[in-house]
């Protein structure tokens, strides 16, 4: 188990370095010279050259990459071109809200998705099954922003039930819950379909397994068979697949944050790109990528931890 974790950690390092290298090269191809930006519009050539030396921009690229990595390890991702605030400072305030939004979305969508998938698999071929399948095909075709705009229009604007812009506060306050409700409904709403589909496949597979037949044969109640013998085993692949869908969720989160002006990493990234704030864009993309690699790593380890059969491999 420990060996597996270490092995996975080791294979992650080159990927992380690759991401950082791409993030670094991103800054090399953009058409702005950070030294000129920092020096200001009235600076002399000498001043720009001096700043260039100070920032290490006169060094060869590989030395600059080294400097960049060293600064990164110290938590220095540069300074925003737009408002001169340190990128890490701005970023640190947005990670919490993004995690909050993702958590709130998964909190309600996973149980519903699993329930729908189990129902569909148990009554395979019935009207219920076909309804769930149709729902998941249709649900997988809805643009996130469509769902968001509809919720804003009806729940937020027409019925005035919930706020639809910004974040009211942390999750443990009432304002926090109210403000996260619509974004979480939107993001979670697009997540039900894939979870239901994956659960249905997994439960179908387990239902035809021999240990389920044995459980039935020894006279267990149907609910015991389904809940304890079938669903429990089916959950292993479902957990992994949900983990692998985090990327999908992240994409939805970027859009959801923009629709609801939710102050998360995704909205910060989009805003930075649209305003050509390159250091900020670079920082947000790096943080999103590294976070993503981390999630994949955790899912992978979790998979082995959940399924003893995987330990030998």
């Amino acid at each position, binding site marked *: 188990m420990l060996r597996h974790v270490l092995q996975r950690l080791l294979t992650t390092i080159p*990927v992380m370095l*690759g991401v950082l290298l*791409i993030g670094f090269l*991103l800054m090399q*191809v*953009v058409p702005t010279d950070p030294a000129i930006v920092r020096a200001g519009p009235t600076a002399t050539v000498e001043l720009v050259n001096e700043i260039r030396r100070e920032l290490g921009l006169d060094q060869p690229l590989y030395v600059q990459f080294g400097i960049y990595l060293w600064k990164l390890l110290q938590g220095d991702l540069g300074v925003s071109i737009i408002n001169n605030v340190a990128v890490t400072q701005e970023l640190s305030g947005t990670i919490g809200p993004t995690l909050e939004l993702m958590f709130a979305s998964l909190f309600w969508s996973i149980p519903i998705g699993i329930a729908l998938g189990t129902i569909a698999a148990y009554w395979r071929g019935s009207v219920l099954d076909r309804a769930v399948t149709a729902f998941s*095909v*249709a649900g*997988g*075709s*809805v*643009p*996130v*922003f*469509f769902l968001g*705009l*509809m919720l*804003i*229009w009806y729940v937020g*604007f027409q019925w005035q039930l919930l706020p639809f812009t910004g974040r009211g506060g942390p999750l443990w306050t009432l304002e926090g819950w109210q403000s996260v409700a619509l974004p979480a409904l939107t993001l979670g709403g697009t997540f039900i379909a894939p979870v239901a589909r994956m659960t249905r496949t997994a439960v179908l597979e387990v239902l035809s397994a021999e240990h389920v037949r044995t459980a039935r044969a020894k006279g267990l109640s149907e609910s015991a068979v389904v809940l304890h013998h079938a669903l429990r085993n089916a959950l292993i692949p479902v957990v992994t697949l949900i983990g692998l869908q985090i*990327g*999908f969720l*992240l*994409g939805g989160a*970027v*859009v959801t944050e*923009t*629709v609801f002006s939710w102050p998360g990493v995704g909205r910060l*990234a*989009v805003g*930075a*790109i*649209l305003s050509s704030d*390159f250091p900020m*864009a*670079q920082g*947000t*993309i790096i943080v*999103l*990528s590294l976070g*993503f*690699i981390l999630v*994949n790593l955790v899912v992978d380890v979790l998979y082995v931890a959940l399924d003893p059969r995987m330990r030998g491999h």
Partner: protein
Amino acid sequence: MASINSAAAAAATPVAASMPKRPGMLKRLLREPVAAIAFVLVVLLIGAAVFAPWLAPTDPFDNDLANAMAVPGTDGLLLGADSQGRNMITRLLHGLRITMMMGMASVLLGGLAGALVGFTAAFYNRIDGLLMRLMDVLLSFPAILFGLAIAAIFGPGVPAVVLALSVATVPLMARIVRGAALVVMRMDYIEAARSTGMGDVRLILHHLAPNCLSPIFVFATLRFGQVILLGSALSFLGLGAQPPLAELGAMASEGRNFLFFAPHIAVIPCVLIFVVVLAFNVLGDALRDALDPRLRS
């Protein structure tokens, strides 16, 4: 050589004729009413996208501020007008065209590159591991991250979106193609073709690739729907098509500013995106069922 071939063909003909005729792919597909509807929809949508400039009643950039935010049903404007008084029908047709072209380009570019990687990996054992590890790395990043990074480097626009979605499609197609090609590689006719001294490229192009077409086709259809969803989302964020260009996601984004006064400006493009994606998803599922003999009852 030619005489042997024709003799073989002559010998094979009676056998083929005596076999019960298998209904064509299309016929099998259209037997399902839902699939048939999806197929008709896809044909109509492609037709509308291709002929948009001729079908559209007005110029897509023609604005008439007197009609700004006209609701659907206003005289002469069946679906109303947008915030600048441009005819919604015209904008939707052109938007559909740009959105579908964006999707088509991404699936074609990413699909071709992915197929190349997949065939190479299946054919040359030595680099299989390396290639597929690389694909795994690509696969571990969500498409939206490629979209953000590429828009940051090259600036927002349709080319950035196409590039991002192509890159995101490569590893998926590579996996599908490799899987299909590995099965075909075990067939006797590949061995036979190889024993005639056929070169690798010819072998891949003439014998391997044609027999891997159905999974490729099914994947491309399903991927088209996903790519439309992602591309319109990137445009909605402002990273794709730039105004005044009509693109469905960009139109929805523009309409978002007028949601409370004229919801139709945002809602109609959203509905159209939903219909396009749904039609391709349903058709892709049906194609898979029709082409995969294991699923056929």
